[in-house]
């Protein structure tokens, strides 16, 4: 009597990659729904990732290889430390760099940089967009005031998708 070969346990996909892909989709949407100052409309469209978040960097690199922000090419930077002269269109600050966030806001104050975080309460500390979890789903809070301080114009569509802060 023959026997069936059973590969007992199925392979599991990586949820961290999925989560990062989701955030990359959000970030790409932001590039379409936010207007940057004139001097940010030429050259590469720079997205910096401050802190350790390799899956997001990988996903953003995939984004950069297939899409553009209007006519601008994407440039993805892994950021180890924040320099005041640095020019980012978007800076994603990962949770492991929350203690340095005050330094980030002071160094990039008034730059045309969209500051994106993912920790409850960060819009009160200067973040323009803050990812939050609502009913197991990734949503985002938006601080129009913080965006405007960075010379960014937020579209009404983006405002409509943002969740209200409690």
């Amino acid at each position, binding site marked *: 009597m023959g026997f069936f070969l059973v590969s007992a346990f199925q392979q599991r996909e*990586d*949820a961290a990659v999925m989560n990062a892909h989701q955030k990359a989709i959000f970030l790409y949407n932001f590039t379409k729904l936010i207007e940057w100052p004139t001097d940010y409309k030429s050259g590469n469209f720079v997205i910096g990732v401050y802190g350790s978040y390799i899956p997001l960097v990988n996903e953003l690199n995939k984004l950069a290889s297939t899409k553009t922000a209007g006519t601008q090419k994407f440039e993805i930077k892994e950021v180890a430390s924040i320099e005041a002269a640095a020019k980012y269109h978007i800076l994603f600050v990962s949770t492991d760099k929350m203690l340095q966030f005050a330094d980030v806001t002071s160094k990039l104050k008034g730059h045309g940089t969209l500051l994106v975080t993912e920790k409850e309460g960060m819009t009160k500390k200067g973040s323009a967009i803050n990812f939050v979890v609502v009913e197991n789903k990734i949503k985002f809070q938006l601080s129009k005031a913080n965006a405007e301080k960075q010379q960014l114009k937020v579209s009404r569509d983006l405002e409509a*998708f943002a969740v209200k802060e409690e």
Partner: protein
Amino acid sequence: MIKRHTYLLGLTLWCVLACIHASAQQNPDFVAAFNYVNLKQADSARARIDKAIKDSAVAKEAQSWYVRGFIYKYYYTSKEVNNQSSPARAEALRSLRKALSMLPDTSKELRGSIHANMKFIAAKYHNDAAKSLDTSNYQLPIKNFEMYMEIMRQIEPNMNLKPAEIEFNLALSTIYTSLYQANSRTRSNILELDKQALNKVLKLDPNSVTANYNMGILYYNQAVYLINNSDFDTPLTSLNGIQDDQVLLFKKSLPFTEKAYELDPKKAETIQALSGIYFGLNEYDKSKLFQEKLDELKKEKIEQLKKDNQH
């Protein structure tokens, strides 16, 4: 070995012949068919038994159909044993079944012989299913396995066929999963077949760790694919809907994976899957908890290995 086989074949046929009704024995084609089996001429044996069975005096006897089944089985083993959809095997089975249906309840001896031949055919169907089940070919193995089950249910109604059915459906699920993973966009029907196979196993054995885990992973992977297959261009409106579906799938995955964990808390894959599900549900604290359990388990295993090496 061949000599012994020929001797056994002759002996079996002689026993059959002894209990054949006189009217059948008077049919020259019927007798010739026997002789051709002894001469190992399967083609001629088959041709003559088919001619003989057209005689109503031969066809009315259960024994005649048994002999026809026997000869077709002989033809199958001689000529079509590598043909997984062998017509001769199917015909042998049909004849044996007909013989069985015509047999009075008292004919224990012949019933036993018919059963033995059917069991042989059932084993061949099972072996063929096991041999050929792969991603390029799963429909014929399913058919062959169903034949095996059908025959065994008929001849051994008290036999526990659950283990075989579980084993087959788990293997089938693995094949479906591979097919789905190879091309998930065009194979959503495959996913349903996969779930059906696993549901069959879970119905037979609700405590199957493998089936619970695999069902959990099936939903889990489906959830992950939803996002990973979404283009960067996905607008925020659609992303919201995708996330709704995704959460639903992760939540469907959870009870199966939790059950697998409950049944075998030391299985690293299950702990890792639970950590992944909670991560997918954006419940990072719970995800971390299972990640810590996994790290602990890994440490335990390393300690155990060290101890084993010391001994």
